[in-house]
């Protein structure tokens, strides 16, 4: 099912959560809504579900205007952040609930068979008789997913699906969700504030800030070509330097970096830690090493530039760098954003 949002606006009391968001999601796509807290991502998800109503704008499911269809009839599967499993029902009863209350009458055996299928799909065979309080967080998450899938939803919506889980469980579940999506091919939208999760899992990432879409695209597009400083910083560690562009080249200290298409004038230059190089001789940006952090696969250097900015960059583990050492930083690759 193709989903389309057209200039959707939502305001709570006095706080405007979503400012005119338009978005298209293709049938079968797996899309991440990524943003910091307060960016409106959960509100958008809840509006697609029908758990909030848009103040203005429209939401289409295929060609149908779904803006005013109540959640009960919208046919979405929603996985709540804290799962919202019914504590007084067993795992199997939770999964079967949607079929039991459906207008389409199914007999008990049919429901039981489908529940068994779903338990197998989410790899929880044998746990059908447990209560939600008796299983682990990761298992609860999978029950919540099975419950949402049981009603054959047109679209699957997940609110911070891995937010409440330990890091290692989260990693496994992420891969597993990807597999399920591939197997079922159902249009899926999930909300996250974790850029790694979004980039790992989604076909397309929609980055939000203060209720507006800042950028959307495949993980490759948003990573390689961040549209502004916010996206650049939000997607990962980034060093910021101020410099100046002259004729398509950005100059900062003694270093230079290509800035094709950027008009002449003062600029912000952003570079990832692994795109900086360190050498004891110029040219480059003069800096002094403050600290060296050793990690299993890399060696990170924290250095201060004469203008007071702090840079972080990675060097080869073998490279000898010491605290207090003076040297020069050059930029292998960087993003240049005009300040004008």
């Amino acid at each position, binding site marked *: 099912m193709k989903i389309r949002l057209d200039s959707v606006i939502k305001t*709570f*009391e006095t*706080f405007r*959560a979503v400012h005119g968001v338009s978005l298209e999601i293709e049938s079968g796509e797996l899309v991440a809504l990524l943003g910091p*807290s*307060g*960016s*409106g991502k*959960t*509100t958008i998800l*809840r509006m697609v*579900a*029908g*758990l*909030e109503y848009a103040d203005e704008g429209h939401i289409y499911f295929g060609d149908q205007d779904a803006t005013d269809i*109540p*959640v*009960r*009839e*919208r046919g*979405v*599967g*929603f996985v*709540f952040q*804290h799962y*919202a*499993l*019914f*504590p*007084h029902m067993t795992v199997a009863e939770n999964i079967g*609930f*949607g079929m039991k*209350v*459906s*207008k389409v009458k199914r007999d008990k055996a049919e429901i039981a068979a489908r529940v068994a299928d779903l338990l197998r799909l989410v790899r929880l065979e044998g746990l059908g008789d447990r209560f939600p309080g008796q299983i682990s967080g990761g298992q609860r998450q999978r029950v919540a997913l099975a*419950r*949402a899938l*049981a*009603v054959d939803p047109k679209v699957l919506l997940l609110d911070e699906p891995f937010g409440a889980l330990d890091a290692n469980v989260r990693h496994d579940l992420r891969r597993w969700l990807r597999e399920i999506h591939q197997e079922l091919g159902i249009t899926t939208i999930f909300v996250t504030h974790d850029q790694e999760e979004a980039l790992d899992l989604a076909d397309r990432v929609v980055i939000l800030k203060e209720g507006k879409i800042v950028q959307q695209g495949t993980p490759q597009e948003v990573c390689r070509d961040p549209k502004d400083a916010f996206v650049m910083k939000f997607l990962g560690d980034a060093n910021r330097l101020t410099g100046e562009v002259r004729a398509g080249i950005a100059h900062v200290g003694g270093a230079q970096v290509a800035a094709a298409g950027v008009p002449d004038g003062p600029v912000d230059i952003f570079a990832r830690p692994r795109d900086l190089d360190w050498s004891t001789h110029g040219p480059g940006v003069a800096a002094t090493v403050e600290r060296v952090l050793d990690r299993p696969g890399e060696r990170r250097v924290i250095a201060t530039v004469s203008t007071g900015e702090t840079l972080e960059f990675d060097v080869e583990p073998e490279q000898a760098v010491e605290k207090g050492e003076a040297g020069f930083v050059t930029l292998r690759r960087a993003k240049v954003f005009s300040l004008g």
Partner: protein
Amino acid sequence: MSTARRKPPRVGDNPLFRRLLIGIVLLLGALLILAPLIVIGVEAFRQGWKVYVATLANADTQHAIMLTVITALIAVPLNTIFGVAAAWAMTKFDFRGKRLLLIVTEIPFSVSPIVAGVAYLFVYGLQGIFGPMLDAYDVKILFALPGIVLASMFVTAPFVARELIPLMQAQGRDLEEAATSLGASGWRTFFSVTLPNVKWAMLYGVVLCNARVMGEFGAVSIVSGNIRGQTNTLPLHIELLYHDYQAAGAFASASILAVIAVFTIIAKVALEGRGAGRRVKPATILVTPETRP
């Protein structure tokens, strides 16, 4: 001794202080709480079994018991419906004036039952707003069952609501939203998702409400008119017998209510064992506006 685990003393664990405090509390508790209960039994049987049974078999006593039971059978269910509706409205939705509504709901707790009785007089009595009109159509509310029921509903109005509201507030709206997103209707959501998670708290409220309805004295004594054998509930009947110098009869009737009180407490403890009656801290109630990031 080897298995005894020693713990560092907490504040107030000084053995002398501890024993003294327990001693004082037990003594005062026995004098102030237990003795009144025991004396009812003693006084009820002072003149022997026969008088006891005779009092309870008396037609007026029987009628008072019946009236009390009927009042409870009407007032308690109505109050429960109100409590559930109020809790649903106030915890599943946001609307202007919610806090005010909550405060108004709790007013009967702080109002004297006598004031409540007088207030009803000025609504349905001959000197009240609707009294003359009701009289013209020969509708009897005061000095009859409807008045007794209404007054009982006033004094117990917050009982069920105040058990449900903090609990349902703490549980949030996720479960209901989940059920609705799976296609469940409103009633279905309420009966198969909301109610199973609040049933013990609701029952707790019902038990306390029932005890209060059956025992209400002040408000009912004003609106009932105290007509022997007609509008006397059991507590009023006790007063009547007592002032008639039939102490044994009064205590015999009181013993029925005392037994109900003891059963109420047993039910209360049993329900608390199932998690009902736990107070959520007042600061967390109804002060969280539902704004989502």
